[in-house]
């Protein structure tokens, strides 16, 4: 019993000896001095800045890559006069049939069809591109007479015979000019109409 007791005491003493370890004096001061040399840790949210920037760049690149290729039509509100033209372009773009990539040349058999499509496209552009004007009751529209037209009207009223002679002369001169342009020879000029009205 005494040996067991002695053995237990020896074991307890041995464990105390085993665990007896004291640091050198000034451990706390050395630890604090070491901590003062440590760099200031960055805030945690700063760690995410490069990652967020990279993610934003990737998103922008992907968005640009996936964006559909559209023709940018000029804004109708920016320029009012370009509005109908822009509308006609959009109409043409939607009315155009898809281009056949496998047929680099157009055979003569399909040429009339293509020409017809082009004409139809042109007509559609003309009909949709220009605004329709109001239909007029008389055509051409009545306009005030020019000075020369007023002189001709006065001559017809006051000297109808002389007006007729002038008209005949102009007709004859036009015929001579046409003959000269066709044959290169100038016909003789007819003499003045000496007939006097009866």
């Amino acid at each position, binding site marked *: 019993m005494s040996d067991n007791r002695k053995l237990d005491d020896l074991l307890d003493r041995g464990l105390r000896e085993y*665990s007896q370890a004291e640091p*050198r004096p000034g451990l*706390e001061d050395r630890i604090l001095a070491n901590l003062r040399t440590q760099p200031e840790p960055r805030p945690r949210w700063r760690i995410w800045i490069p990652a967020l920037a990279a993610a934003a760049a990737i998103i922008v690149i992907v968005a640009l890559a996936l964006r559909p290729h559209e023709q940018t039509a000029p804004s109708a509100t920016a320029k009012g006069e370009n509005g109908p033209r822009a509308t006609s372009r959009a109409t043409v773009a939607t009315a155009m049939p898809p281009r056949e990539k496998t047929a680099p040349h157009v055979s003569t058999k399909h040429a009339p069809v293509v020409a017809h499509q082009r004409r139809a496209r042109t007509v559609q552009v003309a009909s949709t591109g220009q605004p329709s004007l109001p239909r007029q009751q008389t055509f051409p529209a009545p306009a005030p007479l020019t000075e020369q037209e007023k002189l001709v009207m006065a001559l017809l009223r006051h000297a109808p015979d002389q007006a007729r002679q002038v008209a005949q002369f102009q007709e004859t001169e036009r015929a001579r000019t046409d003959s000269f342009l066709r044959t290169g020879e100038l016909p003789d000029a007819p003499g003045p109409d000496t007939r006097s009205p009866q």
Partner: protein
Amino acid sequence: MSWAGQAVIAQLADGAELVDVEALVRQHARLVYRVAWSVLRDHHDAEDAAQETFVRLWRSRDQLPQIADPRLWLARVAWRVAVDRVRRRREQPLDDLPEPLAPGDPLDEQVAGDQLRVVMEELIAALPKDMQDVINLSAAGDMSAAELGEILGVAEGTVRTRLHRARQLLRERLAARLERKRIT
């Protein structure tokens, strides 16, 4: 944050709470050192491990309010730091090996002084690893079985069982060694 005066104050991000790191150093540096020493068995390595432990505390000081028991947290970190350092050791220097007992000495004289410590180091080194951990950590400081279990990651009952079994083995082997000395 700046080191104003002697106080090492770590202000939290929300500014709602202050943690006195210096107070933690003053209060728990010895425990941290002893935990590290219990694993490393070297004063220089133990102090380096203690320094590293408090550097980790300083770098993660904004999470301190989430730590329920800073003392236990420091002991656990010190334990892990020391274990990592042991793993990095390539080989143990020869001068750190315990010296053999001088034959022929009486029991009380054999185990007197530093030799008893050498005997215990030999006996504990021969224990299974899980028992070594429990013995080393329990010898480092005044910690309960529950705290030892927290640090080692085992249940409190497991700690008690290992402690009891380790003490039993140490007692048997110490008795056997003393018996051999008596015979010789």
